[in-house]
């Protein structure tokens, strides 16, 4: 009885992590996805149904891998001693710098899977979980920025701030993939400059003053 139970557990050794690893390896060495889940599992000497215990499709594995990039990044920055002292802008910068570091370990994989969506409003399935994790993070940062008045709350627009930051992160990833400079230094500069710009736009600017002045004139005419 005991022996049988033990046998069962060794049979179940193929974990989600192992499947993900095997899939990534296949993708990187072959340059494309396996022809089917069946073929893929046969190569691992496993039944096809084992696969569906964890994932519904290869895209689901991609989604999981991308989500892990975001999670690892957030975990890394939150353990940094300096992080708590940062303002909203610095928190976003820290996220972006660290994300690029995290992605660097898997650059080939990122290069194979990352395609900038043709229409920015459509998020491909494999990127959805990553986006969700990032959105949570950026909304938290925006909230905090509004609290500290680093970011200005504007009607309608402030609901969409995180969408802008999402476009920014897509830009940075594709910039990094095209970056040929030593140690990806140019990406560092791109991050610094684009984040400064977006926080400048979210902060109080001349347009707010113009709008305020216009409203004043209208009310006092």
């Amino acid at each position, binding site marked *: 009885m005991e022996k049988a139970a033990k046998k069962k557990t060794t049979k179940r050794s193929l974990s989600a992590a192992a499947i993900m690893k095997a899939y990534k390896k296949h993708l990187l060495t072959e340059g494309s996805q396996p022809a089917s889940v069946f073929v893929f599992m046969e190569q691992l000497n496993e039944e096809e149904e084992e696969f569906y215990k964890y994932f519904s499709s290869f895209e689901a594995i991609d989604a999981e891998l991308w989500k892990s990039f975001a999670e690892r990044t957030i975990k890394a920055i939150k353990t*940094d001693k*300096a992080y708590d002292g940062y303002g909203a802008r610095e928190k976003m910068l820290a996220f972006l710098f660290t994300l690029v570091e995290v992605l660097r370990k898997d650059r080939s994989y990122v290069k194979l899977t990352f395609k900038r969506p043709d229409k920015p409003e459509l998020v491909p399935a494999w990127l959805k979980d990553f986006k969700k994790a990032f959105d949570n993070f950026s909304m938290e940062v925006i909230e905090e920025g509004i609290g500290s008045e680093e970011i200005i709350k504007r009607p309608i627009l402030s609901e969409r701030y995180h969408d802008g930051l999402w476009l920014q992160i897509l830009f940075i990833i594709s910039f990094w993939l095209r970056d040929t400079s030593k140690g990806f230094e140019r990406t560092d*500069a791109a991050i610094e400059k684009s984040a*400064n710009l977006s926080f400048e736009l979210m902060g109080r600017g001349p347009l707010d003053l113009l709008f305020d002045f216009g409203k004043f004139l209208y009310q006092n005419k």
Partner: protein
Amino acid sequence: MKGEQTSIPTSKVQRATRFLKTGAKVGGNYIKHYSKKMFDAELSRDQLDNDNAEDIYDSLSELKGSALKVAQMLSMDKNVLPTAYQDKFAMSQYSAPPLSYPLVVQTFRKYLGKSPEDLFDTFTKEAVNAASIGQVHKATRDGKTLAVKIQYPGVADSISSDLKIVRPIAARMFKISTAELEQYIGEVESKLIEETDYSLELKRSMEITGLCGHLEGIEFPTYYPELSSDRILVMDWINGLHIKEWLATNPSQEQKNEIGQRLWDFYDFQIHTLKQVHADPHPGNFMITDSGKLGIIDFGCVKEIPEDFYEQYFKLMKDDVLNPDYNLKDLFFELGFLSDKDTEKEKAFYLDIFTEMIELLGRPFRSKTFDFGDDTYFKQIFEVGDRVSKMKEIRNSKTARGNRHGLYINRTYFGLYNLLNELKAKVITSH
């Protein structure tokens, strides 16, 4: 975030428009000048130069990296610039917009694998000082106060494209002929690229400060190779006052002479014995420490002096070159001051000018002591520089005169003379 510049002109296009704006404004100032002059004949050129310097300074101060460095270089060569520019440019040597702290952390992670918090006991989040291609943070570790210099990312990449932009505008702004500028910029470019390599700077700093260690009354920081990398340089923090600040404390003439003498000896030893020289004698690189020593930092720009150039160049400073029977002409040919392509008339013209300049600039070398506080001497230098730069023959000259290696040596001496003039120091120049 306060105090950090938030919009940095970034791309080449933006930098270019920044420069064009300056060009347009300088042009505008001239128009303003001439229209004012129609009513007020008394308006001096100084006023005009002031307006221009301000506009140029305003534009350049928003740039960092190599453009700022070029501004620094031009501000050093006082005889290229009218007096009004100088103070403005000297300021550019002290201030540039800082980098965000996360980028500092990122740079540390990338090059040393650790955060500043892990490496140091304390580390300032904001830069305490700006170098032209990086910024300086103050840190402590094991009870020592350290200066940590961090380079802006992508500086090395942007040098060539920056200089392409600077070239035509500098030619017009500073009235340098294209041929001369080419030679100038080629040498500057290679030196600037060297300056972005902090590992090289570390090696040189340690080497030169080691070899100069026996010089009296001079203090060098200790360098920390284990905390440094291509983009990060860590050294001791030197406490003290910049020369201007020190002078404001009213030191005695003896003290000023002493500091001046140390400065002179430091350069004398490097040039004649080491044959490599700290070629960046701008005021920001020198401190007077609390104990009255002369602190010297920043060996980013070091010029190695080739042996044959050394021989020729210092012949010019000897006593006998001014004797009427000395064959100066051949020496000028060797140094490239004269060229085979020159007509007889040109040869005679240049021979006159260069002889005059050599007499003037070599004067400190031909006497035992020299009083650098003598303003009439400096006025004379500016007067000659100004007159020469206005000569039709020179402005239209297509031939670059002089030697590539001379650029940094001349720059070093100009810088040194100016520092000594500022100190009003009387120095023993030949031992």
